């Protein structure tokens, strides 16, 4: 408990610091406005009291003219204070709106920008729904806290302090009684508050579970239907839902009872102060106060009013407890995301436009067809290496974690323009190899070179720019078809995009879509078939025009007949490029220059289609397997 408390103290300090960083000028001004507002809101009561006192004194005399001057004066002063408080209140509420939403935006940007730079490993090992809830649930709790709790706490704090000072001014004895009451109230608040906070946090956890379950079932709703599994899933859901209910109910019960308890402790305290005041007055015990005033009725009455006000303040503070606890938990999670270590990049070799002058490569600003690697650290004469797409693996070992090696002793080379295929059972390590070329993951042993340069020396962004990847799971983004194709090259013209689509064999079906290239793609892609999505992904890679292409089951969802039609385009696309192909369908890989057969992380056979058939090894079995059984 203690450890957690200190932990959230750290978070609180950091949160406040961050907010000040976001709004170094505006936030202090706002806080000043709040303090000012709280201070002057407690002053009018004094003038009000004055007016009442005057009226009390002179109502029997019926002499309006005699007192009108005085009353008008006080009313005017009062009006001035009211006006000031209104201005301060108006200013701080508006400023607070800006600060709240602005801070949320800045947090979102910080999170998102940080997230974009995280290594792929983070996304492979963290539940996507979890990452998502940083942006939804946690940001929501922060909003609540910044917009309401912080100003409320400030106001209550300031006005409590003011009241305490005035109390001390009047009578230390009575203040002592009040302090005992306050002590009791804080105890109760802490007790009930921590219980309710505990359940509120549990409620968030249970809510997360329900969310996860619903998401999984909704995703597989069709499977549920096909298996008539409705009742079973309903039972499972009920269990989680009931659990959430019981925790939420308890959390809210605690939260809802806190207010009445505090209010009535306040009432009792009021009575006690009255009685003690009475006793003190009767028994004539000398008063102890800053003002040195003797205890009298004129002190006791306002004192009682202040006691009420004070209890009201504590009630307000207690109202914010849940928001603060949940906000802190949210802030802590958000900071965790922000603190994740970004993908490291120590590469210094960059990709530049180049042209040939006197048989030598020279860097140039304009876009040429020639690209070169620029090695900052190399001596002048061989600083530039032409980008050709020569990829070599030498004795590469790799595992996703320390304990388990997935790839063993991989040695292979792909000369510029060659097509290298990987075949093998699922889980043999085909996709893993492609993860290494673009450095989504770093190898444990051995070297991978690109045009003779160790890829760990190449800046990651440049390395990846020189590689085109078409992935197994097609990802398209919300937006029009043409925007999705343009993703490969942001400055591509419409013509270039269409050219690429034609190359990929996607042009025909796109033009048949209701709005052609402007058709919007929904995020779940419901309006396109899997095969059509793959074709768009291929077009996207085509427009990027990289020297090396990696195709991981790029055509698995395209039927072979369409593939046949696409094939020409694909051949054109692959022409002159180094291509790595992963495919289940052997027809897709047959015409490769080299075929690697992988088994459990080892390359067990390599060679051309003809070579491998002649070898009559694993590949031969895979290839002829279907026929063998007949």
């Amino acid at each position: 408990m203690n450890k957690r408390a200190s932990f959230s103290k750290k978070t609180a300090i950091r949160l406040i610091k961050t907010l000040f960083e976001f709004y170094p000028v505006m936030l202090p001004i706002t806080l000043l406005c709040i303090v000012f507002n709280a201070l002057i809101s407690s002053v009018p009561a004094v003038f009000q009291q004055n007016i009442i006192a005057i009226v009390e004194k002179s109502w029997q005399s019926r002499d309006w003219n005699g007192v009108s001057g005085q009353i008008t004066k006080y009313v005017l002063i009062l009006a001035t204070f009211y006006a000031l408080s209104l201005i301060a209140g108006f200013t701080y509420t508006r400023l607070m709106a800006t600060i709240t939403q602005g801070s949320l935006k800045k947090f979102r940007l910080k999170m998102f920008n940080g997230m974009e730079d995280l290594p792929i490993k983070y996304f492979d090992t963290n539940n996507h729904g979890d990452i998502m809830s940083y942006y939804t649930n946690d940001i929501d709790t922060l909003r609540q806290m910044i917009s309401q709790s912080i100003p409320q706490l400030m106001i209550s704090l300031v006005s409590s302090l003011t009241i305490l000072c005035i109390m001390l001014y009047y009578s230390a004895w009575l203040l002592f009684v009040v302090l005992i009451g306050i002590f009791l109230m804080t105890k109760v608040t802490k007790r009930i508050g921590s219980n309710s906070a505990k359940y509120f946090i549990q409620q968030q956890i249970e809510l997360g579970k329900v969310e996860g379950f619903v998401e999984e079932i909704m995703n597989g709703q069709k499977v549920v239907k096909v298996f008539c599994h409705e009742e079973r899933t309903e039972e499972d859901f009920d269990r989680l839902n009931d659990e959430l209910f019981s925790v939420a109910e308890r959390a809210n019960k605690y939260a809802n009872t806190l207010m009445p308890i505090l209010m009535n402790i306040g009432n009792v305290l009021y009575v006690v102060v009255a009685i003690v005041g009475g006793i003190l007055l009767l028994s004539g015990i000398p008063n102890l106060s800053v003002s040195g005033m003797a205890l009298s009725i004129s002190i006791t009455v306002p004192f009682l009013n202040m006691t009420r006000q004070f209890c009201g303040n504590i009630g307000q503070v207690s109202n914010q407890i849940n928001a603060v606890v949940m906000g802190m938990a949210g802030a802590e999670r958000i900071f965790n995301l922000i603190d994740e270590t970004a993908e490291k990049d120590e590469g210094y070799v960059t990709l530049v436009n180049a042209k040939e002058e006197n048989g030598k490569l020279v860097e140039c600003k304009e876009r040429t067809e020639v690209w070169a690697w620029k090695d900052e650290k190399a001596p002048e004469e061989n600083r530039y290496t032409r980008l050709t797409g020569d990829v070599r693996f030498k004795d590469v070992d790799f595992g996703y974690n320390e304990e388990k090696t997935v790839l063993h002793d991989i040695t292979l080379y792909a000369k510029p323009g060659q097509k290298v295929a990987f075949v093998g059972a699922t889980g043999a390590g085909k996709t893993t190899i492609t993860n290494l070329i673009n450095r989504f993951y770093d190898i444990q042993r051995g070297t991978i070179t690109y045009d003779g340069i160790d890829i760990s020396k190449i800046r990651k962004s440049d390395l990846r720019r020189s590689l085109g990847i078409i992935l197994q799971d097609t990802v398209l983004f919300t937006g029009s078809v043409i925007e999705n194709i343009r993703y490969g090259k942001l400055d591509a013209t419409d013509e270039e995009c269409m050219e690429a689509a034609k190359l990929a064999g996607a042009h025909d079906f796109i033009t048949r879509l209701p709005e052609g290239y402007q058709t919007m793609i929904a995020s779940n892609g419901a309006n396109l078939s899997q095969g059509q999505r793959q074709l768009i992904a291929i077009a996207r890679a085509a427009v990027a025009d990289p020297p090396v292409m990696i195709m991981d089951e790029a055509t698995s969802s395209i039927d072979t007949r369409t593939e046949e039609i696409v094939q020409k385009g694909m051949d054109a696309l692959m022409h002159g490029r180094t291509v790595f192909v992963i495919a289940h369908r052997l027809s897709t890989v047959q015409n490769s220059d080299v075929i690697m057969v992988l088994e459990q992380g080892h390359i067990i056979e390599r060679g051309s289609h003809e070579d491998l058939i002649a070898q009559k090894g694993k590949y031969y079995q895979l290839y002829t397997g279907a026929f063998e059984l007949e």
Partner: protein
Amino acid sequence: MIRVLMKSIREYKKPSILAPLLVSMEVIMECIIPFVVARLINQIKGGCDLGMIIRYGMILIVMAGLSLSFGAGAGFNCATASCGFARNLRKDMFYRIQTYSFENIDKFSTSSLVTRMTTDVTNVQMAYMMLVRLAFRSPLMLIFSATMAIIMGGKMALIFVIVIPILAVSLFLVMKSVTPIFKNVFKKYDALNNSIQENIKGMRVVKSYVRQEYEKAKFERSAEDVCADFTRAEKILALNNPMMQFCLYVAMIFVLSFGSYTIITSGGMDLDVGQFSALLVYNFQILMSLMMFSMVFVMVTMAEESAKRIAEVLMEETTLHNPEHPVMEVADGSIDFDNVSFRYSEHAEKMALANIDLHIKSGETIGIIGGTGTSKSTLIQLIPRLYDVTTGSVKVGGVDVRDYDIETLRNQVAVVLQKNILFSGSIKDNLRWGDQNATDAQMKEACELAQADEFVMQFPHQYTTHIEQGGANVSGGQKQRLCIARALLKKPKILILDDSTSAVDTKTDALIRKAFSEYIPTTTKIIIAQRVSSVQDADRILVMDGGTIKNIGTHEELLKTSSIYREVYESQNRAGGEENE
């Protein structure tokens, strides 16, 4: 809409009624206590009769106790009512969704259903809590205070007749200008979150194309946009507080100046000092209760959108109904399509299937080949009545599928869907979807048939291996084989594989088919595939094109008669042909 939601209150009616009742009593206490307090003060002022002070003190303490128990009781009931309502809403939605047909499911995206069941329900829960607690509290306070003010102040209370409408109108104006902004911004907010989700899912693509900066800029734009709108709305909402204060201050100054004038000029006849200070207190209370009312109003308007989205789910009628006198047994695995046409929605221009006539004998093996978008999946989804035909009829075992009990039918017609899914849980848990009471031996047998046993046994925990959500920790081919095994456990009369072996290598694919023909020869088997090798040994093969059956026949026949089939076959076997020479 409200009525639809109200149905979910059910067993929580009692706390839902009790809570406001208790709140009302609490309010009454809250209003009486100041009275007694005023008396107490008078006692102290009057000369400190300690006995009287203690007596009043005792009364006050008892009242505080009552107020506490009412308050706590209200709090408890309110918690139960609102959380219970939320629970029932979630439950009703979930149960409702379970009755949906495929057509209904297609209407809602997964993420929207998830939001509806979580965020939207939470919003409604909060609003309900506010309603139960404050809907009675603030009007009661208002009425009570106003009455008291009139009794006490007489003519002075007229100020409220002026101030309250002003405040009410301006609160209303604020709400009115804020609501459309909120509605609009929530849509943008959804889009923002959607783009985050896409980035998380598509991070490999973002990184491959080195588009981090581009995505950041894109995100910043939408975040700015959302922020600007929210700020605008909140700034308007922020007017509430100063506005209320302004009215309060105006009333205060009026009461103070005009009140003191009245008292003094009338010599206390029209108004006395006690009434005067009480007026000031009620003044405050009236405006406070109005303020609370406006807060309820904000909450309710914000929850309105959510309530609408929930009601949409609850009101969605399933498009498939069980017949009144359902047939409870499927005679055999024969299938007849009689002049079937089908389209996905009434508005669709094109028929997805047109005039299909097809008769499959029980125990036959049928292969289906065709390009993407030729309605292969659509055709087979009509058999277990996942969709209803538009015209014509589909018969299974000689009976129209619409006459069967849906569960009976689907238990006999097992479909392995193209987009198949494993659920988090052990392999056994997943297999038991096919048969709740399957023994270990039966599960193993099904897995052997589906060629899954071998790799399952290689897992460290074998059949108890935990499958992660969506089957993330098994490969595509393994997933497909487990899905087939799961379907086999149903022991269906008809087994349909919708491109279910696309990620399985040719050899295993062949082994699966071999196992089928040896071990479940009487089951009607329909196999949709991309690979000719997957269907070429079928009894008959359908070639689909543009929503119709283009050709039908055996492998040999089709090679002669169907140009499409020949093309597909040649594309897949060209090099193989060379090798065979």
